[in-house]
């Protein structure tokens, strides 16, 4: 271990930020549920994250030689794509937001956020344990 905090903690922090951003967009959509002509917005970042981690469909970046440089991962090297619906859904004057979809997206987002905070917490508890055990 070269440094005290691995890069994975930065990834988790970044993903937490993106999840908060997604929560903001979902809140905007739900607040505008009765606004005519409102275009629902969504945030997509999972694919970008996978690509940034070089774990996309092509699989891991292959190292064919011991001398190959390991690809350093930069957690700020990617960001979420904000997508807007092309056309607002327009049912009986006012109904442009798919409420079920939004609430489900929010619930999912919340669960993942909570899971990620637990991951970060565990990270620190692990570190603490090592320090306290080593001090004995």
């Amino acid at each position, binding site marked *: 271990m070269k440094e005290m905090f691995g890069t994975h903690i930065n990834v988790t922090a970044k993903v937490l930020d993106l999840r908060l*951003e997604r929560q*903001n967009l*979902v809140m*905007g959509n*739900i*607040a505008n549920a009765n*606004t005519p002509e409102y275009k629902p917005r969504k945030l997509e970042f999972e694919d970008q994250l996978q690509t940034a981690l070089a774990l996309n469909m092509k699989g891991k970046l292959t190292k064919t030689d011991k001398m190959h440089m390991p690809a350093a991962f930069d957690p700020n090297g990617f960001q979420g794509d904000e997508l807007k619906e092309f056309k607002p859904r327009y049912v009986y004057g006012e109904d442009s937001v798919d409420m079920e979809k939004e609430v489900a997206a929010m619930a999912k987002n919340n669960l993942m*956020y909570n899971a990620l905070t637990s991951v970060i917490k565990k990270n620190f508890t692990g570190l603490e344990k090592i320090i306290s055990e080593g001090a004995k």
Partner: protein
Amino acid sequence: MDFMSALDIGSSGLKAQRSHLNVISMNLANIRTTRTMEGGPYRRKSVSFESSPVYSPFDKAMQDASNRDLHGVRVNGVTVDQRPFKEVFDPNHPDANDQGYVYYPDINVVEEMTNMMTAMRGYEANVQTIQTVKNMFNKALTIGQ
């Protein structure tokens, strides 16, 4: 983009739904009103919503694309419904005209109740979003513990 802007959006939604509910109860309360300050029977009102940016134009110029597209909701105004009045024959009514007809506002109770349910559900959904973001905030606080 931060937690506080999420709460601002949620509260804008709550506020809009509450104004909608106010207008609906006004309609239902005035279902038989024949005299108003403007003269004539009461006219049915409805609200118009508009999505409004969360950040000021200056803030938006300084921030990234996703902030520029963050929208809350705003009540644009209360509009007056121009549907014709209901004519009822009642010669003993003080507001009856020469032929003995009274004009009542044409308010459909079922329509108003449906709108009320929509407003209520919208309000509840906004409360849920605020609860969720509070939950997220509390979870983020536990990281430091």
